[in-house]
C-alpha cells in the first residue's frame, strides 16, 4: 500500500463571478518512506492539494487516499496518522506558553502526559528552543514560532507529514536547521513519509526523492530531481545581468526561447533564459542591446530545476 495516492483529482472553486480550477486531473502516488516534493509558483494549487489530503477540503471529483483511507469518507482513520505544518502564518494561542500550547495539542492526540512531555522536551532540544518552554507564544519570533509548529506536528509521531512551504519567510540558518531535521526524521524510520510543497528550487532539489512540478493546477512533470534536470540537458541556460533595467516581454515571441525569468537586482536586471539552440543565444543578446541594454555578466550554466520549470511553463517561479 502506498502512503498517498491521488487519482484524477479535480478541485474547482466557484465564487460569484469567478471559477478557478485549482487542481486539474492530478494523479500522483507517493510511496512510504519518500520525501515527495510539490513544486510550483503562487496559485499553482499546492495548498489546495495538501488541504484535500489532510481532510480539510473535499475534492470536486477524483479520488485521494492516505494509507489506503479515502480522504472524503475515512477522515477519522486518517487524522490520527497525519499531521501538517504551514509556513508563513502565526498559529498558536498567544497567551499560552510554548509548552502549554504543545502539551494541549498532544492531549488532543491522546498521547499520555508523561510521554508527551518527553517528546516535547526532546524535540525542543533538537530544534534549539529548549529554554523557551515558559515563553508566551505571542513573544516568539517568526522562526521560533515555526519551530513550535514543527514540534506540534512531529511530536504526534505521524506516518505522513504534510509540509506546506515550511521554510517560507525564515532566515537561511533556521531554514537549514528545519530541512536537516526533516531529513533526519525520515531517516529514523523507513515507513515515514513527507509531502512537501515549496517554491524554493533548491529546497526541492536538496530534499526530495521525487518532485512533481505543478502549474495552474496541472502536474506538468514528475520525476527525480536528476531526471528532471536531464530534461533540459539539450537546452542552454543563460544567466545574464543587464543594465539598466529594460523590458523583456519581447522574449515571449522569440522563437527558440523555451522560457525566461527576470528579477530586479538593484537597478540591474537579472535574467535567466532557457533557449534550445546556439543561434537563439545570439538573437537574445542582440535583442538586449537593440533595446539599449548593456550586458555586464553572461554565463552559460548547469541546468537547474528552475530551468526545467521555465521550459515546462514558460515562466519563472518567484
Amino acid at each position, binding site marked *: 500500500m502506498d502512503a498517498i495516492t491521488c487519482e484524477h483529482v479535480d478541485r474547482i*472553486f466557484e465564487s460569484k463571478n469567478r471559477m478557478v480550477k485549482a487542481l486539474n486531473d492530478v494523479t500522483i502516488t507517493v510511496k512510504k518512506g519518500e520525501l515527495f516534493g510539490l513544486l510550483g509558483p503562487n496559485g499553482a494549487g499546492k495548498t*489546495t492539494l495538501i*488541504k484535500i489530503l*489532510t*481532510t*480539510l*477540503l*473535499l475534492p470536486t471529483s477524483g479520488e485521494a487516499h492516505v494509507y489506503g483511507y479515502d480522504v472524503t469518507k475515512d477522515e*477519522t482513520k486518517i*487524522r*490520527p496518522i*497525519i*499531521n*501538517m505544518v*504551514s509556513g508563513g*502564518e*502565526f*498559529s*498558536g*494561542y*498567544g*497567551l*499560552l506558553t510554548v509548552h*502549554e500550547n504543545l502539551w*494541549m*495539542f498532544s*492531549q*488532543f*492526540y*491522546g498521547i499520555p502526559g508523561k510521554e508527551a512531555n518527553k517528546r516535547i522536551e526532546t524535540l525542543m532540544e533538537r530544534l534549539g528552543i529548549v529554554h523557551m518552554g515558559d515563553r508566551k507564544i505571542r513573544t516568539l519570533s517568526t522562526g521560533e514560532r515555526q519551530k513550535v509548529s514543527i514540534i*506540534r506536528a512531529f511530536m504526534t509521531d505521524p506516518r505522513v507529514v504534510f509540509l506546506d512551504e515550511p521554510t517560507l519567510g525564515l532566515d537561511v540558518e533556521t531554514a537549514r536547521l528545519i530541512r536537516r531535521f526533516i531529513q533526519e526524521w525520515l531517516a529514523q524510520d523507513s515507513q515515514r513519509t513527507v509531502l512537501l510543497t515549496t517554491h524554493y528550487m533548491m529546497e526541492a532539489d536538496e530534499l526530495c526523492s521525487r518532485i512533481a512540478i505543478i502549474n495552474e493546477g496541472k502536474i506538468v512533470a514528475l520525476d527525480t530531481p536528476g531526471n528532471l534536470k536531464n530534461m533540459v540537458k539539450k537546452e542552454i541556460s543563460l544567466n545574464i545581468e543587464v543594465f539598466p533595467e529594460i523590458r523583456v516581454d519581447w522574449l515571449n515571441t522569440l522563437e527558440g526561447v523555451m522560457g525566461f525569468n527576470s528579477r530586479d537586482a538593484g537597478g540591474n536586471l537579472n535574467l535567466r533564459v532557457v533557449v534550445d539552440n546556439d543561434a537563439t543565444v545570439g538573437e537574445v543578446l542582440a535583442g538586449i542591446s537593440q533595446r539599449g541594454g548593456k550586458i555586464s555578466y553572461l554565463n552559460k550554466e548547469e541546468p537547474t530545476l528552475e530551468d526545467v520549470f521555465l521550459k515546462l511553463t514558460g515562466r519563472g517561479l518567484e
Partner: protein
Amino acid sequence: MAIRSSLWLEYQIEANWTSPVIFILYNTLKPVGGSLLLLAMYYVVTGGFLGGEGLYFLYIGNAFYMLVAQTLFSVGWIIHDDREHYQTMKYLYISPLSYFTYLMGRSAMRFLLSLLPLSVLIGLGILLKIPYRIEILLLIGTFFLGWIFVISAGLLLSGVNMLTARHGNSIGQAFSGIFYLFSGVVFPIHVLPGWASTAALGLPSTYWFSLVRRSVLGKEVDSIMSGFTTGDVAVRLIIISVLFFVISYLTFRLADYLARKKGIIDMSTTY
C-alpha cells in the same frame, strides 16, 4: 483527556489572562452591574422596590439568563477566534479529537465559570429579601439540563459560524435575544401576544426558566407555566432539549460538511 484539555483551554482563555482577583471582579461585575441596571429600570417603571412577585420573577430570570448569555457569547467567538485570530482551527480540525467534542468542552467550562457570578447574584438577592426556597436536587438537575440546552444552542451557533466570516457575535446575540424575549426571563410569557406565547412553549428555555423558578423560589408565578406540574415541565424540557440537541448536532454536522466542501475551514479574511 482531550475533553479535559478543551475545558482547560477555555479556562486559560477566559480566566487566565489576568490575576484571579481581576478575573473574578471582571467576571462578576459585568453581570451584577447589568442586574442592578435592570432593577433600577424596574424601580422607575413600577415606582417601588420591594415585595413584588414581579421583582422576584425578574431578578431570578435575569440572574440565570446571564448563564445562558455569557456561555453563548463565548461560544460565539470560538470558531472565529480559532480560525482567524489564533489560526489553530485547521490543526484542531485535523487532529483525532473531533471539533465537536472540543466545542462541548469549551462551552462546558464557560458554563461552569458563569456559575460564580450567578452565586453572587443569588447572594445579593438576600439583600433584596427575595423569598428563596431552594430545592437543591431540583436545582442541580436544572443546571444539568440547562447545560444541555445551552450547549445545543452553542452548537447551532457554531454551525452558522462555521459558514460565515466575521459576523462576529451578532448571530450569537440575536440567539440570546430570542431566549431573552420568548422564554419568560424578565416577564412572563402570558404577556406575550398569542402566537408568541405558543412559540415560547416550543422553546426549551421556557421550561428551563420555569424549572429555575421552581427550584429557587419554590413556585411558578407565570400563569401559563403554572398550569404544568414540575414533573411535566421537567419531562417536556428533557424531550425538547434532546430534540433541540439532535437538530443542533445535525445542523453542525451539515455546516461542517459544507465548510469542507467550500474550503472555508481555514478561511482567513484578515488580509
